[in-house]
């Protein structure tokens, strides 16, 4: 083998080894997916500190939406069908906000275990359905927790 | 469906129309810009050819 060829083989070898290690590590990373938000169950099990800002995601619990006395603050429960977190929010809610909708909220949890949200975002899924066929779908969505037999993931 | 209802877009007029308008405008701009540049390049090259011809006639 001439020196030039030897060099070429070394390069190829290095590339193959390096890329396969990188792929392995990347796969390992995928195993424990990085979370943009946490679920109510996680909050429940791991506890919370009132200093921390939490981003919690889940479905709006059916029949939990209520308006406080001041007329602008709303309260509702966010659920993953196993545990709930009560959320309190002052401000304009996204248009998609409704019972059974998946949402993401951001805020601190106060002494009464109520998450005082500074932001409420709706999470739209990948299903597009015409208006005419909507009723059944919407009902199914709102009753998702009733139909589910475990935690719903988002 | 009548036109005003159509333009109203179920209350999302601003969002829908601004997106569509912006997209069309961008696409049109790309084409216009390319055509404009084409004309300018051709003009410049033509001028250069003329200059060279003049130069050759002189010498």
């Amino acid at each position, binding site marked *: 083998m001439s020196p030039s060829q030897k060099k070429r083989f070394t*390069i190829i070898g290095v590339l193959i080894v390096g890329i396969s290690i990188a792929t392995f*590590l990347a796969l390992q*990373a995928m195993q424990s997916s990085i979370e943009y938000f946490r679920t109510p169950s996680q909050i429940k099990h791991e506890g919370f500190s009132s200093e921390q800002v939490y981003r919690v995601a889940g479905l709006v619990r059916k029949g939990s939406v209520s308006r406080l006395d001041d007329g602008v603050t709303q309260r509702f429960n966010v659920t993953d069908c196993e545990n709930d977190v009560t959320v309190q929010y002052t401000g304009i809610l996204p248009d998609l906000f409704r019972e059974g909708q998946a949402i993401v909220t951001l805020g601190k949890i106060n002494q009464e275990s109520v998450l005082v949200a500074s932001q409420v975002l709706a999470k739209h899924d990948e299903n597009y359905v015409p208006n005419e066929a909507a009723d059944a779908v919407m009902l199914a969505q709102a009753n998702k927790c009733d139909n589910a037999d475990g935690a719903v993931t988002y | 469906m009548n036109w005003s209802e159509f333009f109203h877009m179920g209350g999302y007029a601003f969002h829908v129309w601004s997106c569509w308008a912006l997209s069309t405008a961008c696409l049109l701009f790309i084409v216009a810009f390319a055509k404009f540049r084409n004309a300018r390049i051709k003009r410049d090259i033509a001028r250069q050819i003329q200059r060279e011809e003049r130069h050759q006639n002189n010498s």
Partner: protein
Amino acid sequence: MNTLLLYFKREWQLLFRNTGALIQPLVFFIIIALLFPFSLPAEITLLQKIGGGIIWVAAVLASLLSLENMFQSDYQDGTLEQAIIHQRSLEMAMLGKVLAHWSATGLFLTVFSPLLCLTFNIPSEQIWVLFFGLLLGTPSLTLIGAVGAAITVTLRRGGVLIAIIILPLYIPVLIFGAGMLSQSAQGLEITSQLYTLAAIFVLAITLAPFAIASALRATIN
């Protein structure tokens, strides 16, 4: 391998000749540590909360800013030309240079980060997270940055161009590195971020030397 070590050694020799370059990251750190308390409203918890983020930003800026010099002086005095002509493996030579560069910026920075953390009152579990994050992240920053520096070596004030080129590739490292910090502050797992940083590092260290060498060959002519 020998080439790598030699270049590593020479780079360090040059740094020692020029103490200025050696203490650059430290000075930079001190500057940041000094400037922020002076310029932020006087709330004690504030610094503690944003301290980790600031340190990461400082690390990114420090690597970004030291990049311009990485190949520039070699290019100007002609040693780079010599390396291109003579070096059997330009990749190895440049890797040596880059690693020396990292050890003088990234490693330094990492080693001093706990000190900075203390001045920011950051809790000690977080200090470790920050430390390992920086240890894993800064080599990638330097390696990726070196590619940008190599592409722009012939340009006189390439600094900005490096920044523009490199920033998109820096952001992921920053996201995972700093993300690790805020995750751990919330008591969440950080293994996934660690793996990702490691993957980025391995990828960078295998590919960057080739990218650097071919960028240098392509732009110097």
